[in-house]
């Protein structure tokens, strides 16, 4: 674990990581610091806020379904758990057109190289969500074949536990990512290195 480069959210002065649904008022992050302080603490201008708002409202994921979590990711596009209300139903097949990489499923060592290649082909700003236990930490497969956590090769913004996560859990992860981005948190590749 790199100590100098990895910055945690608390380094920004944020006490809690708990994000709530966006309400009309300030978000939890903003409440903790006070609205004006947040902007000063993170150096966000109004234009920056507007750009972040736009990025959040249409963050297109890449079709990176690997295993069982991919089936739950497909059902989030379905009509019951509708991802289109967040502007994200357009799953791009080409990583060059995608913003968000939802690693859904267990990553075998053979697949690790294509995963890193896809991540490198994405244009910045880009985010990574490790969906499910297998992508977060190797899950129940602590063996020779599975990468023990996708954060060993790509920097991850949000980890979503469970096996497989319910579509609502995945949506909560996505919304937390939106809120973090709105609050000014930079994407993971600026904050941390890949875990060793």
């Amino acid at each position, binding site marked *: 674990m790199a100590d100098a480069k990895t910055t945690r959210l608390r380094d920004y002065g944020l006490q809690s990581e708990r994000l709530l649904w966006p309400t009309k008022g300030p978000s939890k992050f903003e409440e903790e610091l006070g609205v004006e302080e947040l902007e000063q603490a993170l150096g966000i201008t109004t234009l920056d806020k507007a750009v972040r708002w736009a990025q959040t409202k249409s963050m297109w994921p890449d079709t990176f379904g690997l295993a069982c979590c991919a089936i739950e990711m497909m059902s989030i596009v379905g009509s019951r758990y509708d991802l289109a209300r967040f502007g994200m139903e357009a799953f791009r097949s080409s990583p060059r057109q995608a913003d968000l990489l939802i690693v859904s499923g267990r990553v075998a060592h053979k697949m690790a190289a294509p995963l890193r290649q896809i991540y490198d082909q994405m244009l910045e700003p880009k985010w990574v969500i490790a969906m499910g236990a297998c992508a977060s930490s190797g899950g129940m*497969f602590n063996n*020779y*074949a599975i990468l023990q956590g996708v954060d060993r090769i790509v920097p991850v913004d949000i980890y979503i536990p469970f096996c497989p996560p319910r579509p609502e859990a995945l949506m909560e992860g996505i919304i937390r990512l939106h809120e973090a981005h709105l609050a000014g948190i930079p994407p993971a590749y600026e904050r941390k290195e890949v875990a060793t």
Partner: protein
Amino acid sequence: MNDFAKVPGYVSTTEAYGETTVVVDRGSIREACTFARDELGFTMLSDLVATDYLEWAEKGVSGYIGTAAGRDLNMPMTQGLQALPDAKPARFSLSYHLLALRQGAPRLRLQCWLEDGETVDSVVTVWPAADWLEREQFDLMGIRFDGHPNLVRLLMDDDWEGHPLRKDYPLGGEPVRFSSAE
């Protein structure tokens, strides 16, 4: 069932749990498979499995504290069940699970035994389904099949060393504090 004694290379037959296992000699497995396909009518190869019996009868396996000498009622945590399993003929067993597509769905297991380093004839010409099945067993267990047109690794990386499913290959992964794995 019918007389399996006519299978080329026949060694023995066992019946257990409603299944028939015919053990054949390693050198005549291709003739035996052709016989099973043509004469006995087992036209479909369901599965091809290799099992590694390293240290099967040597140490207490999976919780048994067995001795070849026999029971010791005073040995704790054994419930008196101490019997080492019977020794197997060789290290690897190769089982061909065959299916006949007729009334009653008869199944047959053709089995041959081999040691590490020995090879077996490939049955790709008998059932093309054996192509990837044999490649998989070569990849994971290290059994080479003579006459296979494309015997390269299938599931692991092309430059992977070792054969993961063997008993002397470690499970891998990362060490965790509490694990039931020994």
